């Protein structure tokens, strides 16, 4: 392989291992998505709740902040003690890191809805549920989407470290590259799709975020 330059090696690698890379790519993406999805299911209601009960907000956000400050490799190891090796450990780690951007953005989005709009809703005789569903959520949707976008990009990065607990994903390819003879091409072969995945999901969610903002229509 020494006669090829790095780019040729990279091309040759994809030609030989295309199916494998694709399966690891899907796996990587699914791990990230599941983590963020669960964080959204739990984080968005928490965000809404603390926006309505602002006494609690400081504590909840402080807890999420503390989680965020733990280095990801340390967090992965701590969770591994409890859950063992494998993919579940990584999903839980992603879930914990995705909580802060989602809770924080949901909270900010809800708080930024102008009180006069809320008052007019109340004045029209809307119930609390109706105000939430028809006024607050639509108006804060774009900010919530921005939180999800942050969380997903973060998640893709964390999933790459998941290879150390045997979860698979594109991190496996990167680590193999560091062990192989002239592994430069293999490292790139793993790192490029990871970066690409982050960029693409960021762009797609940015587009959705824009579409979700009712004031832009």
């Amino acid at each position, binding site marked *: 392989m020494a006669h090829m330059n790095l780019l040729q090696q990279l091309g040759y690698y994809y030609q030989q*291992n295309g199916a*494998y890379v694709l399966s690891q790519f899907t796996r990587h993406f699914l791990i990230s998505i599941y983590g963020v999805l669960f964080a959204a299911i739990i984080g968005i209601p928490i965000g809404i709740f603390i926006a309505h009960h602002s006494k609690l907000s400081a504590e909840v956000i402080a807890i999420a902040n503390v989680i965020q400050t733990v280095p990801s490799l340390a967090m992965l190891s701590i969770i591994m003690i409890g*859950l063992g*090796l494998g993919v579940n450990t990584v999903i*839980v780690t992603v*879930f914990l890191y995705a909580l802060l951007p989602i809770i924080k953005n949901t909270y900010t989005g809800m708080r930024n809805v102008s009180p006069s709009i809320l008052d007019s809703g109340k004045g029209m005789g809307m119930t609390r549920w109706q105000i939430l569903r028809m006024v607050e959520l639509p108006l804060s949707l774009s900010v919530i989407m921005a939180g999800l976008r942050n969380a997903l990009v973060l998640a893709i990065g964390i999933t790459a470290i998941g290879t150390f607990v045997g979860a698979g994903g594109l991190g496996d390819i990167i*680590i193999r590259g560091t062990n192989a003879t002239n592994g430069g091409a*293999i490292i790139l072969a793993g790192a490029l799709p990871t970066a690409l995945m982050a960029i693409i999901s960021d762009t797609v969610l940015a587009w959705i975020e824009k579409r979700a903002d009712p004031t832009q229509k």
Partner: protein
Amino acid sequence: MRKFKKWILGIIATVASGVLLAGCGFPGLSGSSSDTVRIASQNTTEQQIMAYVIQDMIQHYSKLNTTIINNLGSGTVSFNALKNNQADISSIRFTGTDLTTILGETADRGNVKATDDKVRSQFNSKYHMTYFPSYGFADTYAFMVTQKTAKKYHLNSISDMKKVASKLTVGLDQTWLERKGDGYDDFQKLYGYKFGNTYPMQIGLVYDALESGKMDAILGYSTDGRIGSYDLKILKDDRNFFPPYNASAVATNKVLKEHPQLKPILSRLNGKIDLKTMQNLNYKVDNNLVEPEVVAKQFLEQHNYFEGSDK
């Protein structure tokens, strides 16, 4: 005090939801549900190839779900994964290594069969794991030098290094330095010398370090494909220091009982892979940019998944 309680409550809630999450299986991700066969593999090429060979064999002959727990740091880590029910099958274990590191006994250097038998019966009775018959190859640590260095110092065996050892820079496997029984300490006792400079390295990197002249000698694996491609000289272990390392798959008795179809599938691999074959497979991965998964698949397709070899 009330604030403190709220904090604790919050942390408990986060942890609880995390644990709840971990309990369920995720569609599209093999290995997350509880009825999956988990294959533990270390971070060496050989281990990963065999892990994929086992996975492909299981998928070919049964409908079981499989997943590979990859990149484990050492034999001890993968052993513990099996022991603590975090994995079901270890892709390659070496009898000689397990005898000294896991069972904590000293190897009978001349007698391979005694080692194999002892490890096999002790693993079964002590740890409830089944040690399969060997794949057909043995891996052992070997000191290697380039042909040039061998000529320069007239090196043929490990004993020959004694007179120049203090001048040599040697790349070594990290885990070997701390090992009991067949590690560096005992090596010094048997051969009676130590090296001038030792560099603990990731095992995959030592061959390149030797080839590029950064090291004078290395301790590597005898099955590595790069020995052939770099034309390295293996120094004879003239005092039989390294115990025999016959390679086998190991599975927990629990998983073999739960899925009785596994045993015949794994037994199909008995004696099917000799040293040359393993070197060749390793070479494809280490030098030809082919992933272990692809190499394993090609190998099995070439041999028709060892169809018709069940006893």
